[in-house]
């Protein structure tokens, strides 16, 4: 045996001994050591955090760790659970009484009570609130006693509870709002398991554990939300251990992680739907046959596979499978499958045997450009010549509001109450939620009727009638109901995908 080999042998013995000794001396608990911080990437820029002004799904998902509402939605995207309210009951079709959770304090020490609920909800319906439209039903919030409120609606309003759960009317500390003024948006004060520590707009947001939380306390001491605009940098930072969780990922990252066992790609229901609408004020989209021809002319199933990485579900307008009232028997087979022949026939019937020229307004960003190119190529096959008009968000938002567009792409909701989607088909919402400018007196009536129908069985009938009429008229069509796809380091335990929240209190991270 050579001298070198001998040395190695000795070294091995020493190391083995050390290993055993350290094993003996290690603390008794079996589990691996835990880190007290998690780092999460955010794709889009976060500027303000006050849900009164910020309606982005990103801000809402971050806020869900810090701010709470009377009721909240479970991981399935449908079940409504108590949060700051413990129980509730309808007194009449326009009035509900909520019992509030006792002994809850805001992060600044202000007690949570009926007055705070009144303040928080009425704030959402303020003149300058971005959520005003979603709370236009709200008549008043009445303080019954310190831990009881009565919420009144202006008309019988079936989706009231859903409104409170889905639209994030967070109950915030009234004292903090009054004292901090516009600074409140940089550090909202709520009752949640985490509280905001520092927020650097457009860079990062740090939250720390709320030691006085009313429920089970967060397991992590700290969570950092970092804005990382570049997809490839997010992937690199996950691989280098600088990030533990990527909240939204593209198909390319899914592929890159497929061969790396230390990471997992996790999925769950998502709240978002991508859809394409027609401006029916413009010719030739005033003709339903032309609208149907276009839908038949676009291969949505193939588009899902090629540009969305197979993530999501293709469905018929107007209600996604995650929405209450979605009608499986009639929806199992697509009403508007890819059928270029039928599309051409419909166009000929409508007096456009040689097709026509139109424009498609998109936001100038990669995913929209991809969708635009596929739509352009598919429609070329049926003789429709599509010109893409790509602008930034501010320009598109304004021009579609004014009705300058022909076809356009926009998002809508994929879970919860159908009344989150129906306003897009009401004549009362022209310019605002209804950018198709399509309406039908019968549909207006059905939508109003289902909104006021408290009996769920009767309501379901109305919802399906309205949906069937809208499907038949086809003023817009969905591309897909998204699925949330996120990437985590497997050291992260206890995290689950939620359609609206990036919820961290149950999460631990191994060293």
């Amino acid at each position: 045996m050579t001298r070198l080999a001998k040395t190695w042998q000795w070294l091995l013995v020493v190391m083995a001994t050390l290993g055993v000794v350290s094993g003996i001396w290690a603390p008794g608990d079996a589990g691996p050591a835990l880190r007290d911080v998690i780092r999460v990437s955010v794709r889009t820029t976060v500027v303000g955090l006050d849900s009164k002004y910020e309606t982005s799904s990103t801000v809402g998902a971050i806020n869900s760790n810090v701010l709470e509402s009377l009721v909240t939605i479970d991981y399935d995207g449908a079940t409504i659970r108590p949060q700051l309210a413990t129980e509730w009951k309808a007194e009449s079709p326009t009035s509900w009484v909520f019992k509030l959770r006792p002994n809850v304090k805001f992060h600044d020490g202000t007690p949570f009570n009926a007055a705070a609920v009144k303040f928080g909800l009425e704030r959402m319906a303020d003149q300058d609130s971005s959520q005003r439209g979603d709370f236009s039903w709200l008549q008043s919030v009445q303080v019954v006693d310190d831990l009881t409120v009565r919420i009144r609606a202006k008309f019988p309003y079936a989706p009231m509870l859903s409104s409170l759960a889905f639209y994030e009317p967070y109950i915030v500390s009234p004292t903090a709002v009054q004292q901090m003024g516009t600074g409140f948006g940089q550090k909202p004060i709520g009752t949640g398991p985490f509280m905001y520590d520092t927020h650097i707009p457009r860079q990062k947001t740090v939250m720390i554990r709320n030691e006085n939380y009313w429920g089970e306390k967060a397991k992590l001491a700290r969570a950092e939300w970092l804005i990382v605009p570049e997809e490839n940098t997010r992937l690199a930072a996950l691989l280098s251990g600088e990030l533990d969780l990527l909240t939204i990922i593209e198909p390319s990252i899914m592929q890159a992680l497929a061969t790396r066992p230390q990471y997992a790609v996790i999925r769950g229901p998502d709240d978002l739907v991508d859809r394409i609408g027609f401006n029916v004020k413009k010719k030739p989209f005033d003709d339903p046959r032309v609208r149907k021809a276009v839908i038949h002319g676009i291969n949505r199933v193939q588009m899902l596979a090629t540009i969305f990485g197979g993530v999501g579900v293709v469905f018929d307008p107007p209600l996604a499978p995650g929405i209450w009232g979605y009608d499986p028997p009639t929806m199992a087979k697509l009403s508007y499958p890819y059928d270029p022949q039928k599309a051409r026939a419909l166009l000929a019937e409508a007096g456009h045997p040689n097709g026509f020229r139109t424009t498609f307004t998109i936001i100038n960003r990669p995913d929209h450009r991809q969708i635009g190119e596929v739509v352009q190529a598919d429609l070329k096959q049926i003789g429709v010549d599509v010109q893409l008009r790509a602008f930034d968000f501010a320009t598109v938002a304004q021009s579609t509001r004014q009705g300058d567009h022909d076809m356009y792409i926009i998002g809508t909701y994929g879970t919860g109450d159908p009344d989150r989607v129906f306003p897009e088909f009401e004549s009362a919402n022209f310019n605002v939620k209804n950018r198709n400018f399509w309406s039908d007196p019968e549909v207006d009536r059905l939508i109003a009727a289902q909104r006021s129908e408290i009996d769920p069985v009767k309501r379901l009938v109305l919802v399906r009638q309205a949906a069937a009429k809208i499907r038949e008229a086809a003023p817009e069509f969905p591309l897909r109901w998204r699925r949330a796809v996120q990437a985590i380091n497997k050291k992260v335990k206890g995290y689950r995908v939620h359609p609206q929240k990036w919820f961290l209190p149950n999460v631990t991270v191994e060293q």
Partner: protein
Amino acid sequence: MPAYVVRRLGHLLLVAAGVVVITFSMLHLIPGDPALVVAGEFASDESVKAVRARLGLDQPLHVQFARYVVNLVRLNLGESFRSNVPVRRELALSYPISAQLAVYSMLIAGVVGVPLGVIAAVRRGTLADLATMLVAMAGLSMPSFWLGLNLILIFAVRLGWLRALWSGALIDYLLPAITLATFSVALIARQTRSSMLEVLSQDYIRTARAKGLAARTVTYRHALLNALVPVITVIGLNFGYVLGGTVITESIFSMRGMGLLLVGSILDRDYPVVQAGILVLALNFAVINLAVDLLYAVIDPRIRYE
């Protein structure tokens, strides 16, 4: 010289006035309503109207402009439409990041680029010259997103020496500075080489050599110092360019510098941030140009400013 500086500072005020007018009118000319961005895409018409009133956008344009100018004279930059944070704070967060990035990348570029150019010029036509210029060519052609990502993959993911995400520590500037410097190294090396070649062919260089001075002294004392004037112009211009925000590099390294701040604010139609940001950058550019002009006189005593 002092009179010259005062005159140039006067020009600076003119530049500022021009920038104020042009930025204001261009921002208000492009489509897109800031109130709609702030209120949210689906906000009701009355919400949008309320926001427009709160932001003062319901006033006639000349009133808005007058208000802006009066505030500016009082050094009040206003508040961001989007974040409600004082614009001064938004700039205070972003400007130092861009400034540091600019300084470090120009340091790297100067320290590497000038000697490369000198070597290439002195050994003109040799393999060293060819190699240097090839490297310079590669540096010019390499897209920053490709280079930046590869640096991250090598140094953060593979080796684990540096961070992929910028966190504000000095060391975190290294990779973005190298990414930016690569382009400038190439520019500076090429500029140094050509002006060195010109100087090296001058009579006084031959005289210096004939006197028996060491080659080193001739190259660095007599030639380089004279060749530096155009090089400094390039460095100065490049510095202003880097400071103006390098959106791609900032984006790859997740740095909230002036580039990302301004692009984000333009997309959001955040008028106060865009106006102040562009004004600051324009003044910066003008000051750097002035500094470069003054540096000429320091380097080359033949240059005098009256």
